[in-house]
């Protein structure tokens, strides 16, 4: 009787463990990892190309993470911000003078700025 109860409990534990393993937990962890990787890749692009002005507000560049400076810019949306960065806007030269950056990379950096301002 006792042995059959122990077997039953053991089986129940195995079933629960298997169900947890099959749940969406692993999938969400993977996508979280990807988002984190994208964020880090964008941060690296920013540091290598844009930090020199956007960390300091040089020539009016909106400072990364400065919610006040981004408050009027965020509502314009990512597409407009990307367009401004690619074509140049105000005192900012096209692509900030970093001609080697692709539009996709600039979009990555803009999305990083937006995330940092939220």
């Amino acid at each position, binding site marked *: 009787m006792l042995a059959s109860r122990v077997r039953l409990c053991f089986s129940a534990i195995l079933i629960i463990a298997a169900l947890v393993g099959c749940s969406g937990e692993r999938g969400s962890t993977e996508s979280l990892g990807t988002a984190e990787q994208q964020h880090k890749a964008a941060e690296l692009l920013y540091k290598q190309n844009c930090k*020199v002005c956007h960390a*300091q*507000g*040089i*020539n*009016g560049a909106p400072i990364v993470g400065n919610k006040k400076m981004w408050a009027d810019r965020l509502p314009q949306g990512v597409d407009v911000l990307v367009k401004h960065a690619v074509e140049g806007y105000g005192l900012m*030269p096209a692509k900030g*003078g970093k001609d080697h950056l692709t539009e996709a990379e600039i979009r990555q950096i803009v999305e990083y700025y937006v995330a940092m301002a939220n």
Partner: protein
Amino acid sequence: MKKTLMTLAMATVAVGLTGCGEPESKGVDPKIYTDSLFAVMKADRTNYTKLVVKRLGPAGANVIKPDEHWKDIDNGTLLPAQMFRAGAEAVAEMTDDFTYSLQSIWPINSQNAPKTDMEKKGLEYIAANPGENFYGEEKLGDTTYFTAVYPDVAVSDACTSCHNDHKDSPKSDFQLGEVMGGVVIRVPL
């Protein structure tokens, strides 16, 4: 009565001890002070560039001519870096409470090269770490100073072409977005 006296004595001691523990007023943190000064300088320089040079210069109404030799030209006006330097000179005539200057390890004018070890260290640091500031303390004579160095960046083709093509420039390959020098702010402690 005895109890009241005892309580009063204890309260007096407590108040006295609390008073002794009060932190001394230290004033403004020098880093916040120099950061704030730099924010004002930066804003004024940006506004001069945007609202005067760009608006009225060749890229705008074309009624003024921003040029290094502005004094020799009709309707000539100072380049933003020269305007910045003029501000530093005007402040130096007013006060010794703080000084600021635009310097570089690649100066066109040797007068704008670093003069102290701390200035040199700061300028080298900001050139090697784009977007970062440098802070340090140095003793000059009998006074200890807080010295902050902020990056000065090539923000337009006008900056790079002027420096790269200038006969007195020790560096001729500046790129847009590169640190060309730094703003040194010094405050006596």
